[in-house]
Protein backbone atom coordinates (compact mmCIF):
# COMPACT_ATOMS: atom_id res chain seq x y z
CA UNK A 1 0.00 0.00 0.00
CA UNK A 2 1.30 3.39 -0.88
CA UNK A 3 0.83 6.05 1.70
CA UNK A 4 0.06 9.43 0.27
CA UNK A 5 1.96 12.32 1.75
CA UNK A 6 -1.28 14.11 2.41
CA UNK A 7 0.05 16.31 5.17
CA UNK A 8 2.24 18.31 2.83
CA UNK A 9 -0.62 19.45 0.63
CA UNK A 10 -2.07 22.91 0.64
CA UNK A 11 -5.85 23.08 0.69
CA UNK A 12 -6.32 26.83 0.70
CA UNK A 13 -3.98 29.49 -0.53
CA UNK A 14 -5.37 32.86 0.50
CA UNK A 15 -3.87 35.79 -1.40
CA UNK A 16 -4.44 39.43 -0.58
CA UNK A 17 -7.95 38.87 0.74
CA UNK A 18 -9.88 42.03 1.62
CA UNK A 19 -13.49 42.14 2.72
CA UNK A 20 -15.87 44.99 3.43
CA UNK A 21 -19.28 45.10 5.06
CA UNK A 22 -20.52 48.24 3.36
CA UNK A 23 -17.97 50.88 4.33
CA UNK A 24 -16.40 48.83 7.12
CA UNK A 25 -13.39 46.79 6.23
CA UNK A 26 -13.53 43.47 8.10
CA UNK A 27 -10.52 41.73 6.55
CA UNK A 28 -7.31 43.42 5.48
CA UNK A 29 -4.88 41.87 3.06
CA UNK A 30 -4.96 38.35 4.43
CA UNK A 31 -2.31 36.00 3.08
CA UNK A 32 -2.09 32.48 4.41
CA UNK A 33 -1.88 28.86 3.39
CA UNK A 34 -4.00 26.20 5.04
CA UNK A 35 -2.69 22.69 5.02
CA UNK A 36 -4.32 19.38 4.38
CA UNK A 37 -5.02 16.96 7.23
CA UNK A 38 -4.23 19.54 9.81
CA UNK A 39 -6.31 21.38 12.34
CA UNK A 40 -5.94 25.11 11.89
CA UNK A 41 -7.23 27.25 14.75
CA UNK A 42 -8.27 30.84 14.24
CA UNK A 43 -8.17 32.99 17.35
CA UNK A 44 -8.59 36.64 18.18
CA UNK A 45 -10.83 39.01 20.15
CA UNK A 46 -14.49 39.56 19.23
CA UNK A 47 -14.86 41.52 16.03
CA UNK A 48 -11.37 40.68 14.78
CA UNK A 49 -12.70 39.10 11.60
CA UNK A 50 -12.06 35.45 12.42
CA UNK A 51 -15.63 34.26 11.82
CA UNK A 52 -15.86 36.39 8.68
CA UNK A 53 -12.65 34.84 7.45
CA UNK A 54 -13.85 31.28 7.99
CA UNK A 55 -17.23 32.01 6.40
CA UNK A 56 -15.41 33.38 3.38
CA UNK A 57 -13.71 30.03 2.82
CA UNK A 58 -16.99 28.46 1.65
CA UNK A 59 -18.47 31.76 0.43
CA UNK A 60 -21.10 31.65 3.14
CA UNK A 61 -20.31 35.29 3.83
CA UNK A 62 -21.79 36.27 0.47
CA UNK A 63 -25.25 35.62 1.88
CA UNK A 64 -24.89 39.03 3.49
CA UNK A 65 -25.88 41.50 0.73
CA UNK A 66 -23.54 44.39 1.57
CA UNK A 67 -20.38 42.30 1.39
CA UNK A 68 -17.63 43.17 -1.07
CA UNK A 69 -14.58 40.97 -1.51
CA UNK A 70 -11.17 41.57 -3.06
CA UNK A 71 -8.25 39.21 -3.54
CA UNK A 72 -8.15 35.48 -4.13
CA UNK A 73 -8.77 32.29 -2.26
CA UNK A 74 -7.33 29.34 -4.10
CA UNK A 75 -8.93 26.04 -3.17
CA UNK A 76 -6.70 23.31 -4.60
CA UNK A 77 -5.32 25.95 -6.92
CA UNK A 78 -8.66 27.26 -8.14
CA UNK A 79 -9.97 30.68 -7.18
CA UNK A 80 -13.26 30.13 -5.35
CA UNK A 81 -14.53 33.55 -6.51
CA UNK A 82 -14.12 32.53 -10.13
CA UNK A 83 -17.32 32.60 -12.18
CA UNK A 84 -16.79 28.98 -13.16
CA UNK A 85 -16.94 27.82 -9.55
CA UNK A 86 -20.36 26.59 -8.46
CA UNK A 87 -20.96 27.66 -4.89
CA UNK A 88 -23.02 24.53 -4.17
CA UNK A 89 -20.12 22.33 -5.24
CA UNK A 90 -17.72 24.30 -3.09
CA UNK A 91 -19.98 23.91 -0.07
CA UNK A 92 -20.23 20.19 -0.68
CA UNK A 93 -16.47 19.98 -0.42
CA UNK A 94 -16.29 22.43 2.44
CA UNK A 95 -18.73 21.61 5.23
CA UNK A 96 -19.54 23.82 8.15
CA UNK A 97 -20.47 23.38 11.80
CA UNK A 98 -21.74 26.33 13.81
CA UNK A 99 -21.57 27.64 17.34
CA UNK A 100 -25.04 26.46 18.29
CA UNK A 101 -26.05 22.96 17.24
CA UNK A 102 -28.63 23.45 14.49
CA UNK A 103 -30.15 20.10 13.60
CA UNK A 104 -33.29 20.11 11.45
CA UNK A 105 -36.52 19.40 13.35
CA UNK A 106 -36.52 15.92 11.85
CA UNK A 107 -35.35 12.45 12.79
CA UNK A 108 -31.69 11.63 13.33
CA UNK A 109 -31.89 9.52 10.18
CA UNK A 110 -33.25 12.37 8.08
CA UNK A 111 -30.76 14.86 9.45
CA UNK A 112 -27.79 12.81 8.34
CA UNK A 113 -29.26 11.89 4.97
CA UNK A 114 -30.55 15.34 4.10
CA UNK A 115 -27.44 16.23 2.08
CA UNK A 116 -27.00 12.90 0.26
CA UNK A 117 -30.70 12.94 -0.73
CA UNK A 118 -30.36 16.43 -2.20
CA UNK A 119 -27.42 15.09 -4.15
CA UNK A 120 -29.73 12.51 -5.65
CA UNK A 121 -28.72 9.40 -3.76
CA UNK A 122 -31.87 7.25 -3.64
CA UNK A 123 -30.55 3.75 -2.90
CA UNK A 124 -31.68 2.72 0.60
CA UNK A 125 -28.69 0.45 1.02
CA UNK A 126 -26.35 3.33 0.29
CA UNK A 127 -28.38 5.49 2.69
CA UNK A 128 -27.82 3.03 5.51
CA UNK A 129 -24.12 2.87 4.74
CA UNK A 130 -23.77 6.65 4.75
CA UNK A 131 -25.82 6.87 7.93
CA UNK A 132 -23.65 4.40 9.79
CA UNK A 133 -20.30 5.69 8.49
CA UNK A 134 -21.14 9.33 9.17
CA UNK A 135 -22.52 8.71 12.65
CA UNK A 136 -19.57 6.47 13.48
CA UNK A 137 -17.10 9.07 12.19
CA UNK A 138 -18.86 11.64 14.36
CA UNK A 139 -18.57 9.29 17.36
CA UNK A 140 -22.33 9.26 17.80
CA UNK A 141 -23.35 5.89 16.38
CA UNK A 142 -23.24 3.90 19.61
CA UNK A 143 -25.39 6.45 21.38
CA UNK A 144 -28.13 6.69 18.73
CA UNK A 145 -28.10 3.46 16.72
CA UNK A 146 -31.22 2.20 18.50
CA UNK A 147 -33.21 5.38 18.02
CA UNK A 148 -32.43 6.63 14.55
CA UNK A 149 -36.10 7.45 14.04
CA UNK A 150 -36.24 9.78 17.06
CA UNK A 151 -36.41 13.52 16.61
CA UNK A 152 -32.96 15.13 16.74
CA UNK A 153 -34.25 17.71 19.20
CA UNK A 154 -34.41 14.98 21.83
CA UNK A 155 -30.61 14.68 21.83
CA UNK A 156 -28.38 16.53 24.28
CA UNK A 157 -26.53 19.65 23.10
CA UNK A 158 -23.27 17.74 22.67
CA UNK A 159 -25.02 14.95 20.78
CA UNK A 160 -26.79 17.50 18.56
CA UNK A 161 -23.46 19.07 17.72
CA UNK A 162 -21.98 15.69 16.83
CA UNK A 163 -25.09 15.05 14.72
CA UNK A 164 -24.38 18.29 12.86
CA UNK A 165 -20.83 17.05 12.29
CA UNK A 166 -22.23 13.72 11.03
CA UNK A 167 -24.55 15.67 8.73
CA UNK A 168 -21.59 17.61 7.39
CA UNK A 169 -19.60 14.39 6.88
CA UNK A 170 -22.45 12.64 5.06
CA UNK A 171 -21.78 14.55 1.82
CA UNK A 172 -18.11 13.54 1.96
CA UNK A 173 -16.44 16.92 2.26
CA UNK A 174 -12.68 17.52 2.30
CA UNK A 175 -12.69 20.45 4.64
CA UNK A 176 -14.77 21.11 7.73
CA UNK A 177 -15.13 24.66 8.97
CA UNK A 178 -16.10 24.98 12.61
CA UNK A 179 -17.20 28.25 14.14
CA UNK A 180 -16.84 27.93 17.91
CA UNK A 181 -18.35 24.44 17.85
CA UNK A 182 -18.07 23.84 21.60
CA UNK A 183 -18.87 27.23 23.08
CA UNK A 184 -22.40 26.12 23.96
CA UNK A 185 -21.29 22.75 25.37
CA UNK A 186 -20.26 21.48 28.79
CA UNK A 187 -16.67 20.26 29.39
CA UNK A 188 -17.47 16.58 28.78
CA UNK A 189 -19.31 17.23 25.52
CA UNK A 190 -16.45 19.59 24.58
CA UNK A 191 -13.93 16.84 25.27
CA UNK A 192 -15.86 14.48 22.97
CA UNK A 193 -15.89 17.02 20.15
CA UNK A 194 -12.17 17.68 20.64
CA UNK A 195 -11.39 13.95 20.53
CA UNK A 196 -13.50 13.75 17.42
CA UNK A 197 -11.65 16.62 15.74
CA UNK A 198 -8.41 14.83 16.45
CA UNK A 199 -9.72 11.68 14.74
CA UNK A 200 -11.26 13.56 11.83
CA UNK A 201 -8.03 15.22 10.81
CA UNK A 202 -6.80 11.85 9.51
CA UNK A 203 -9.24 12.25 6.63
CA UNK A 204 -10.27 15.88 6.62
CA UNK A 205 -8.75 19.32 6.96
CA UNK A 206 -10.31 21.27 9.78
CA UNK A 207 -10.42 25.00 10.33
CA UNK A 208 -11.81 25.99 13.69
CA UNK A 209 -12.64 29.36 15.16
CA UNK A 210 -12.35 29.25 18.92
CA UNK A 211 -12.45 31.69 21.80
CA UNK A 212 -10.64 29.23 24.04
CA UNK A 213 -6.90 29.45 23.74
CA UNK A 214 -6.61 26.26 25.75
CA UNK A 215 -8.78 24.57 23.15
CA UNK A 216 -6.68 25.91 20.29
CA UNK A 217 -3.61 24.66 22.14
CA UNK A 218 -5.08 21.22 22.74
CA UNK A 219 -6.36 20.42 19.29
CA UNK A 220 -4.69 22.47 16.57
CA UNK A 221 -1.48 22.09 14.58
CA UNK A 222 -1.39 25.67 13.36
CA UNK A 223 -2.85 28.79 14.88
CA UNK A 224 -3.73 32.06 13.18
CA UNK A 225 -4.15 35.17 15.31
CA UNK A 226 -6.43 37.87 13.91
CA UNK A 227 -6.74 41.40 15.20
CA UNK A 228 -8.89 44.16 13.75
CA UNK A 229 -9.22 42.39 10.44
CA UNK A 230 -5.53 41.65 10.07
CA UNK A 231 -3.72 38.35 10.28
CA UNK A 232 -1.12 39.27 12.86
CA UNK A 233 0.65 35.95 13.24
CA UNK A 234 0.28 32.46 11.81
CA UNK A 235 2.56 29.68 12.97
CA UNK A 236 2.78 26.29 14.65
CA UNK A 237 0.43 26.24 17.61
CA UNK A 238 3.22 25.32 20.01
CA UNK A 239 5.18 28.38 18.90
CA UNK A 240 2.20 30.75 19.11
CA UNK A 241 1.42 29.76 22.70
CA UNK A 242 4.93 29.47 24.08
CA UNK A 243 6.92 32.05 22.19
CA UNK A 244 4.94 34.17 19.76
CA UNK A 245 6.91 36.44 17.46
CA UNK A 246 4.58 39.44 17.62
CA UNK A 247 3.90 41.59 20.64
CA UNK A 248 0.15 41.80 19.87
CA UNK A 249 -0.05 37.99 19.95
CA UNK A 250 1.82 37.84 23.26
CA UNK A 251 -0.47 40.51 24.71
CA UNK A 252 -3.57 38.65 23.57
CA UNK A 253 -2.60 35.16 24.77
CA UNK A 254 -1.44 36.45 28.15
CA UNK A 255 -4.69 38.37 28.63
CA UNK A 256 -3.26 41.87 28.41
CA UNK A 257 -6.12 42.83 26.11
CA UNK A 258 -8.96 41.25 24.19
Amino acid at each position, binding site marked *: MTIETKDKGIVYDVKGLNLWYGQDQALRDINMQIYKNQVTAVIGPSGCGKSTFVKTLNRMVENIPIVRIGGEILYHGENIFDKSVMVEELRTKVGMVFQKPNPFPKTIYENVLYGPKIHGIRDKKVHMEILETSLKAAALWDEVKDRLGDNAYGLSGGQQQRLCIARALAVQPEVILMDEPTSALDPIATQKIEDLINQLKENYSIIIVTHS*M*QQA*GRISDKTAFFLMGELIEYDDTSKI*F*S*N*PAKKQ*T*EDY*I*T*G*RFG
Partner: protein
Amino acid sequence: MRQRLENKLLEIHETLVKMSILVEENVDWSIRALTMQQTKMADEVIENDDLIDSYEEKIEDMCIEFIATQNPLGSDLRRIFTVLKLITDLERIGDHAVNIARITKTIGDETLLEPIDDIKEMAKITRKMIYNSINSYIDQNLDLAMETAAMDDTVDDLYEGVYDELLDIMESKSEFKGQVIGLLLVGRYLERIADHATNICERVGYMITGKRMSY
Protein backbone atom coordinates in the same frame (compact mmCIF):
# COMPACT_ATOMS: atom_id res chain seq x y z
CA MET B 1 -7.80 41.82 34.08
CA ARG B 2 -4.44 40.22 34.86
CA GLN B 3 -4.45 41.38 38.49
CA ARG B 4 -4.84 37.95 40.08
CA LEU B 5 -2.28 36.42 37.78
CA GLU B 6 0.18 39.26 38.38
CA ASN B 7 -0.22 38.99 42.14
CA LYS B 8 0.46 35.28 42.10
CA LEU B 9 3.47 35.71 39.83
CA LEU B 10 4.84 38.38 42.13
CA GLU B 11 4.39 36.14 45.14
CA ILE B 12 6.28 33.30 43.42
CA HIS B 13 8.96 35.74 42.31
CA GLU B 14 9.47 37.10 45.82
CA THR B 15 9.66 33.63 47.33
CA LEU B 16 12.24 32.61 44.74
CA VAL B 17 14.34 35.68 45.53
CA LYS B 18 14.24 34.73 49.23
CA MET B 19 15.35 31.19 48.42
CA SER B 20 18.18 32.45 46.26
CA ILE B 21 19.43 34.74 49.03
CA LEU B 22 19.50 31.80 51.42
CA VAL B 23 21.41 29.66 48.92
CA GLU B 24 23.91 32.37 48.11
CA GLU B 25 24.49 33.02 51.81
CA ASN B 26 24.92 29.36 52.59
CA VAL B 27 27.55 28.95 49.88
CA ASP B 28 29.30 32.02 51.27
CA TRP B 29 29.23 30.56 54.77
CA SER B 30 30.43 27.16 53.65
CA ILE B 31 33.54 28.74 52.10
CA ARG B 32 34.17 30.96 55.11
CA ALA B 33 33.80 27.98 57.42
CA LEU B 34 36.34 26.10 55.31
CA THR B 35 38.93 28.85 55.02
CA MET B 36 38.56 30.02 58.62
CA GLN B 37 38.32 26.41 59.81
CA GLN B 38 35.11 27.06 61.74
CA THR B 39 33.39 23.72 62.25
CA LYS B 40 30.52 25.31 64.17
CA MET B 41 29.78 27.50 61.22
CA ALA B 42 29.89 24.40 59.02
CA ASP B 43 27.21 22.86 61.24
CA GLU B 44 25.01 25.87 60.68
CA VAL B 45 25.42 25.54 56.93
CA ILE B 46 24.21 21.94 57.17
CA GLU B 47 21.22 22.97 59.28
CA ASN B 48 20.22 25.83 56.98
CA ASP B 49 19.87 23.46 54.07
CA ASP B 50 16.57 22.13 55.43
CA LEU B 51 15.09 25.58 55.05
CA ILE B 52 16.35 25.79 51.46
CA ASP B 53 14.76 22.44 50.69
CA SER B 54 11.46 23.56 52.16
CA TYR B 55 11.57 26.67 49.97
CA GLU B 56 12.06 24.49 46.92
CA GLU B 57 8.94 22.47 47.78
CA LYS B 58 6.95 25.57 48.55
CA ILE B 59 7.81 27.26 45.25
CA GLU B 60 7.12 24.05 43.34
CA ASP B 61 3.64 23.89 44.90
CA MET B 62 3.04 27.54 44.08
CA CYS B 63 4.04 26.95 40.45
CA ILE B 64 1.78 23.90 40.09
CA GLU B 65 -1.14 25.84 41.53
CA PHE B 66 -0.35 28.74 39.22
CA ILE B 67 -0.35 26.51 36.14
CA ALA B 68 -3.54 24.74 37.24
CA THR B 69 -5.50 27.90 37.93
CA GLN B 70 -4.08 30.56 35.63
CA ASN B 71 -3.36 28.59 32.43
CA PRO B 72 -0.28 30.69 31.65
CA LEU B 73 0.78 31.15 28.04
CA GLY B 74 3.57 32.94 26.19
CA SER B 75 6.00 34.81 28.43
CA ASP B 76 4.00 33.88 31.56
CA LEU B 77 4.41 30.21 30.67
CA ARG B 78 8.14 30.56 30.00
CA ARG B 79 8.57 32.42 33.25
CA ILE B 80 6.86 29.80 35.37
CA PHE B 81 8.84 26.98 33.78
CA THR B 82 12.03 28.93 34.28
CA VAL B 83 11.20 29.27 37.98
CA LEU B 84 10.55 25.53 38.22
CA LYS B 85 13.95 24.83 36.67
CA LEU B 86 15.78 27.48 38.69
CA ILE B 87 14.70 26.07 42.02
CA THR B 88 16.22 22.70 41.10
CA ASP B 89 19.54 24.36 40.31
CA LEU B 90 19.36 26.43 43.48
CA GLU B 91 18.60 23.37 45.59
CA ARG B 92 21.58 21.52 44.10
CA ILE B 93 23.83 24.49 44.81
CA GLY B 94 22.58 24.33 48.39
CA ASP B 95 23.50 20.63 48.57
CA HIS B 96 27.04 21.38 47.43
CA ALA B 97 27.39 23.99 50.20
CA VAL B 98 26.48 21.20 52.63
CA ASN B 99 29.06 18.90 51.02
CA ILE B 100 31.72 21.58 51.48
CA ALA B 101 30.67 22.05 55.12
CA ARG B 102 31.02 18.32 55.76
CA ILE B 103 34.57 18.36 54.40
CA THR B 104 35.39 21.37 56.61
CA LYS B 105 34.40 19.24 59.58
CA THR B 106 36.64 16.35 58.55
CA ILE B 107 39.64 18.62 58.01
CA GLY B 108 39.14 20.09 61.48
CA ASP B 109 42.10 22.22 62.54
CA GLU B 110 44.76 20.55 60.39
CA THR B 111 46.91 23.21 58.67
CA LEU B 112 45.36 24.00 55.31
CA LEU B 113 47.36 23.14 52.22
CA GLU B 114 48.52 25.79 49.79
CA PRO B 115 45.99 25.24 46.96
CA ILE B 116 43.43 26.72 49.37
CA ASP B 117 44.32 30.10 47.84
CA ASP B 118 43.19 28.99 44.40
CA ILE B 119 40.11 27.41 45.95
CA LYS B 120 39.35 30.78 47.55
CA GLU B 121 39.66 32.38 44.14
CA MET B 122 37.34 29.75 42.63
CA ALA B 123 34.85 30.39 45.43
CA LYS B 124 35.01 34.14 44.86
CA ILE B 125 34.10 33.78 41.18
CA THR B 126 31.51 31.10 41.85
CA ARG B 127 29.75 33.28 44.42
CA LYS B 128 29.71 36.13 41.97
CA MET B 129 28.21 33.82 39.38
CA ILE B 130 25.37 32.82 41.71
CA TYR B 131 24.72 36.45 42.60
CA ASN B 132 24.77 37.61 38.98
CA SER B 133 22.70 34.73 37.67
CA ILE B 134 19.93 35.51 40.14
CA ASN B 135 20.15 39.20 39.34
CA SER B 136 19.89 38.42 35.64
CA TYR B 137 16.62 36.66 36.49
CA ILE B 138 15.33 39.49 38.66
CA ASP B 139 16.22 42.23 36.17
CA GLN B 140 15.54 40.07 33.10
CA ASN B 141 18.99 41.07 31.96
CA LEU B 142 20.16 38.95 29.04
CA ASP B 143 23.60 40.60 28.80
CA LEU B 144 24.31 39.91 32.46
CA ALA B 145 23.19 36.29 32.03
CA MET B 146 25.56 35.83 29.09
CA GLU B 147 28.53 37.52 30.79
CA THR B 148 27.98 35.44 33.89
CA ALA B 149 27.74 32.16 32.01
CA ALA B 150 31.05 32.99 30.33
CA MET B 151 32.72 33.14 33.76
CA ASP B 152 32.33 29.39 34.02
CA ASP B 153 35.46 28.89 31.88
CA THR B 154 37.62 30.68 34.45
CA VAL B 155 36.25 28.45 37.20
CA ASP B 156 36.97 25.36 35.11
CA ASP B 157 40.56 26.51 34.47
CA LEU B 158 41.17 27.20 38.15
CA TYR B 159 39.75 23.80 39.02
CA GLU B 160 42.17 22.10 36.65
CA GLY B 161 45.07 23.93 38.32
CA VAL B 162 43.87 23.03 41.81
CA TYR B 163 43.45 19.43 40.72
CA ASP B 164 47.01 19.14 39.40
CA GLU B 165 48.53 20.87 42.42
CA LEU B 166 46.69 18.60 44.82
CA LEU B 167 47.76 15.49 42.94
CA ASP B 168 51.40 16.60 43.27
CA ILE B 169 50.93 17.14 47.00
CA MET B 170 49.32 13.74 47.32
CA GLU B 171 52.62 12.20 46.09
CA SER B 172 55.01 14.41 48.03
CA LYS B 173 53.16 14.71 51.35
CA SER B 174 51.23 11.50 51.79
CA GLU B 175 50.40 12.36 55.41
CA PHE B 176 47.96 14.99 54.04
CA LYS B 177 46.16 12.44 51.88
CA GLY B 178 42.86 12.99 53.68
CA GLN B 179 42.90 16.74 53.25
CA VAL B 180 44.02 16.44 49.62
CA ILE B 181 40.97 14.31 48.85
CA GLY B 182 38.80 16.72 50.78
CA LEU B 183 40.07 19.76 48.89
CA LEU B 184 39.82 17.93 45.56
CA LEU B 185 36.15 17.40 46.34
CA VAL B 186 35.68 21.03 47.39
CA GLY B 187 37.15 22.05 44.02
CA ARG B 188 34.76 19.69 42.30
CA TYR B 189 31.76 21.01 44.28
CA LEU B 190 32.63 24.62 43.42
CA GLU B 191 32.99 23.68 39.80
CA ARG B 192 29.53 22.07 39.94
CA ILE B 193 28.06 25.14 41.65
CA ALA B 194 29.41 27.27 38.80
CA ASP B 195 27.76 24.85 36.34
CA HIS B 196 24.42 25.27 38.09
CA ALA B 197 24.81 29.05 38.01
CA THR B 198 25.50 28.71 34.27
CA ASN B 199 22.31 26.66 33.94
CA ILE B 200 20.40 29.44 35.64
CA CYS B 201 21.80 31.93 33.14
CA GLU B 202 20.77 29.69 30.25
CA ARG B 203 17.26 29.35 31.66
CA VAL B 204 17.01 33.11 32.05
CA GLY B 205 18.09 33.45 28.43
CA TYR B 206 15.24 31.12 27.45
CA MET B 207 12.78 33.02 29.60
CA ILE B 208 13.67 36.31 27.95
CA THR B 209 14.08 35.24 24.33
CA GLY B 210 12.08 32.03 24.05
CA LYS B 211 15.13 30.40 22.48
CA ARG B 212 17.30 27.75 24.06
CA MET B 213 20.66 29.08 25.12
CA SER B 214 23.78 27.06 25.67
CA TYR B 215 27.20 28.33 26.66
